[in-house]
């Protein structure tokens, strides 16, 4: 699993990346009430908006950590947005994306680097 400074996580299976927000982000947001997931088939560019996650108090953009094409969105979040709070780095994933440049994955932070980054906040 790799991480970004915007608190997204990515796990890679072949060229398919699963993307979500980190436990830290989920904790900071508070109760998640809605996730606007991307349309399947949409092309996303690293650093641009992938999804929107809403808590009662705020709506936050989730950025695509990697570029590619959206293969699947987590439909279960529609009825159970609380999964993002309960299992942010597992069942609370947002989208699966076929990435165009697998090497970009390695350039993201690993767990230790992300934890160190969190220490600086």
């Amino acid at each position, binding site marked *: 699993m790799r991480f970004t400074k915007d608190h997204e996580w990515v796990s890679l299976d072949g060229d398919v990346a699963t993307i979500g927000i980190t436990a830290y982000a989920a904790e900071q947001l508070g109760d998640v009430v809605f996730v606007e997931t991307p349309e399947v088939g949409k092309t996303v560019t690293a650093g641009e908006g992938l999804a929107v996650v809403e808590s009662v108090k705020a709506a936050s953009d989730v950025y695509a950590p990697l570029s590619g094409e959206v293969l699947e969105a987590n439909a279960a979040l529609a009825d159970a947005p*609380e999964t993002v709070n309960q299992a942010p780095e597992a069942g609370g994933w947002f989208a699966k994306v076929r990435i165009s440049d697998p090497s970009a994955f390695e350039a993201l932070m690993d767990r230790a680097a992300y934890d160190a980054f969190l220490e600086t906040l």
Partner: protein
Amino acid sequence: MTMQTVGRPTRPEDVQPLATGFASLTGGRGLLQDEALIFERDGWNKTGVDLPEADLDGSDLGDLARAAPIGLPGLSEPEAMRHYVRLSQKNHAIDLALYPLGSCTMKHNPRLNEKMARLAGFADLHPMAPVSTVQGALALMDRLSHWLKTLTGMPAVALSPKAGAHGELCGLLAIRAAHEAKGDPRRRVLVPTSAHGTNPATAAFVGYSVTEIAQTDDGRVDLADLEAKLGPDVAAIMVTNPNTCGLFERDIIEIARLTHAVGAYFYCDGANFNAIVGRVRPGDLGVDAMHINLHKTFSTPHGGGGPGAGPVVLSEALAPFAPAPWVVHGPEGLTLVEETVGEAAQAFGRMSAFHGQMGMFVRAYAYMRSHGADGLRQVAEDAVLNANYIKARLSGAMTPAFPDGPCMHEALFDDTWLEGTGVTTLDFAKALIDEGFHPMTMYFPLVVHGAMLIEPTETESKQEMDRFCEALLALAQAAKAGDVDRFKGAPYLAPLRRLDETLAARKPRLTWKPSSGVAPAPLAAE
């Protein structure tokens, strides 16, 4: 003597104070009744009106006629009266106690204004009735315009916007039209970080990208940052003055000069005009457009969230682009310009179907006439005096966000003073409910941490403000003394305890739905 011992006791028995947890047997709470929804009273065949039989000798509607039931319950008149009166008793109101919502200006609503708006000559007047039959209404709009223009020192006013945000939209559309008329469409609008959310929302809506301007440590627009961000692609700056921190922008004239120097227009959000009415004319500050919330400065009632009214005063440069309709003096009296042709060809369009919030115009005009120019000046002075008084009284216990210098019509505190108490701004506000007051505006403006924005308005007596300050001071002491439960569980004494907003947003239930003829199961907290 005759010993008459029959009759009711007239003193309370000596009883121990009730332990917590007392509950009535049926859920009633003294005068406060639980009130079922109108859909839960089996009123599907009831009505509270008596209407004559319809004299229908047939209909050509055919399959256009409604076949299926609508699903509307009815109540008889006594039931309806009770339903709404019971519900009303669950609301806080200005008429009950101080309502210190900062930036909302909850002031007394004179009932004379209600009476005037209900005169048949205003209320029973059709917007498209022949102009010769509505001369009094047009004269009232004309007089209101005159007052608004005189008080603001601006040459023109568009009356039709229906609320503050609608007025902002009107102002920005006029600005956009003015730039386009010059063949110089621009892209950006500058908005201070402390702005009300409607400012960036409106600018984005009109197609501009929003650039935020930083704020100085003393709560004003950062001139250096403004200068750095101004450029030939800037269409307008939107500045609230007095600003959302309750402070007058000292450099306002320089802000206007810098804005005009790059060919941009100065939109002033007039939400806080009540602090300066009669003392300062926005026209003298270099403003090009400003909406005026009649429901704030000129005291038309807020009505539980509207209707408002948001006329926009405009500078010479923007006046030709004002939307239809407007009142003009013609040879046969007053008339309305309703189409954007001829002399009105530059008008940017139309904000709504008719002429604006006439009912609010009548109320606002009655209010202006009652106060007069001298009274309106006193309104601003007392509003500012009251806010500074509250700031002075509370500053020992709470931390003002901007301690140096006077505030205008509202006093802003941050939550520094709550550090270490375990009590948040929200908790503190909810505890104020138990003391009988409406909480202040919380967490706005966003630039101040845990903001508490208190606007007493000029219609509060010193006695009521003292009562309010004493409640706040007592709560502050309790918070610092570690009486955390008082806050975390608050409110205890309101019709309902704290509500689960997360549940409402996760499982939206926005209408009542019958499920097989019975009420749906109540939502359960997660």
